[in-house]
């Protein structure tokens, strides 16, 4: 068994002719929680989609569990995906099914388990995210944070080897934030998973991740363990970790000089 579950080498990706990723190298070791950080729109979600195989790289390679995604046909990809879970930013629960049926979805689609066993498994997974009592609710009756936890239970239903989280902390109150962070760490350790977390929440994620990648302008700008990142002297990382408004990452979208836009002086 290899040490690295995910290996990305020289990855390039473009939407049409607009390059988004320009040469990413990234590895996720088994059993680790990896964080991917970077400013909005730098291509973090895109990177997760590349690892999940829903878009293909224009150049470079993505390997998951020793299998190169570029050479896989749909059957091979689907076989691999049964062992991956993805947590979408807003949960993406099936709105026409109850919480229970959402979590049971993959069990029913991919296994022939008898219904009593499915029931036990679903309740176990829901228990792991603290929502066993909510199994009869419909997704519309859940708060955003609860919906995401249900989605997490759904993602771990088949005991995957890898889970990808797209901004699991966005829009959570401080308590749910801590709860979710601990949950990710705990699930990773107890189930022997590997987790890749895309997040903006530096403080919360630095508490629980093993390794951090900073992406900026399509390349890995900085990387390191949580401790290394905290004490990093790189201006970019410093700005991000301490949430400073101006630095290498500008606050303003490129624009005409302010005065010109307001018509005060003419260029």
């Amino acid at each position, binding site marked *: 068994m290899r040490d690295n579950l995910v290996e990305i080498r020289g990855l390039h990706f473009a939407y049409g002719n607009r390059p988004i990723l320009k040469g990413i190298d990234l590895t996720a070791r088994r059993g680790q929680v990896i964080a991917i950080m970077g400013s909005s729109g730098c291509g973090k979600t895109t990177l997760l989609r590349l690892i*999940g195989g*829903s878009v293909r790289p224009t150049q470079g390679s993505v390997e998951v569990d020793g299998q190169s995604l570029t050479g896989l046909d749909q059957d091979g990809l*689907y*076989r691999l*995906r*049964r062992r*991956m*879970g*993805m947590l*979408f930013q*807003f949960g*993406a*629960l*099936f*709105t*026409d099914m109850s919480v229970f049926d959402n979590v049971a*979805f*993959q069990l029913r*689609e*991919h296994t022939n388990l008898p219904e009593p066993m499915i029931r036990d498994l679903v309740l176990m997974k829901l228990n792991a995210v603290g929502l066993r009592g909510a199994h009869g609710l419909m997704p519309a009756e859940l708060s955003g944070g609860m919906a995401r936890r249900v*989605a997490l239970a*759904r993602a771990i239903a088949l005991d995957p080897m890898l889970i990808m989280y797209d901004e699991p902390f966005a829009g959570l109150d401080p308590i749910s934030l801590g709860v979710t962070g601990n949950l990710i760490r705990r699930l990773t350790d107890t189930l022997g998973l590997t987790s890749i977390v895309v997040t903006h929440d530096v403080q919360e994620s630095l508490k629980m991740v093993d390794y951090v990648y900073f992406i900026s302008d399509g390349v890995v700008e900085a990387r390191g363990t949580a401790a290394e990142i905290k004490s990093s002297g790189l201006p970019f990382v410093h700005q991000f970790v301490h949430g400073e408004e101006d630095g290498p990452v500008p606050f303003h979208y490129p624009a005409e000089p302010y005065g010109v836009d307001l018509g005060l002086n003419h260029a």
Partner: protein
Amino acid sequence: MLDGVRKLGQHSIDGVWRLGVAMRLFALTLLHSGICLRRPQLVMREIFTAGVLSLIIIVVSGLFVGMVLGLQGYETLQKYGSESALGSLVALSLVRELGPVLAALLFASRAGSAITAEIGLMKATEQIAAMEMMAVDPIARVVAPRFWGALISMPLLAAMFSAMGIMGGYLVGVVLIGVDEGSFWSQMQAAVDFRQDILNGVIKSGVFGVAVTGIALFEGYDAPPTAEGVSRATTRTVVTSSLAILALDFVLTAFMFRGA
């Protein structure tokens, strides 16, 4: 001028492109239909949402259309002293034309738009993407059962519409106006041919069913994943499938009832 030509060209290319995408989806749907045999309860559910839930509007409209037919038919027929032919007039118009066509139009606005909206929203809220990430093919799991469910419902709804229409015609013609009951039914029985009329009506509604559900599924699957995109796609489903129904009806009628 040149700009206009270019726009026209762009529109034609877009149109052909969309047609190609639609045909591809249609072919994939047929290819992935095996799941409907393996798990019939998936289709059953769609027959319920598309078919059973459309019953009310079909029954009520059928009844009213039949009643109007009874009134108008009697008005015209009695001028020639042949009001006993009322039964065959009502039955033939319903079974051949009005049943399949009106049921399909109602079906397009009731069930077709719902299918488009549902699939479009599933896309907009990333449910389709989530399903793909869970290694479940949404064309097999979501599209194919809806296609077959709606397709099975369509001829049944059309038959229901015709039956209710005949009841309506009977109510107005026989019960209200007083046309002779015996001749109403016997003329109907003599005039309606099983192959020529009923079977052709069923074929018509089958073709309409393919058109409506095909358009509804494609529009939903192709909708831009935004609120505006979904609402526009829903409107397009109703407009496009209504036009398709009427155009197809002309073509089918021309083939089926020529010189009959």
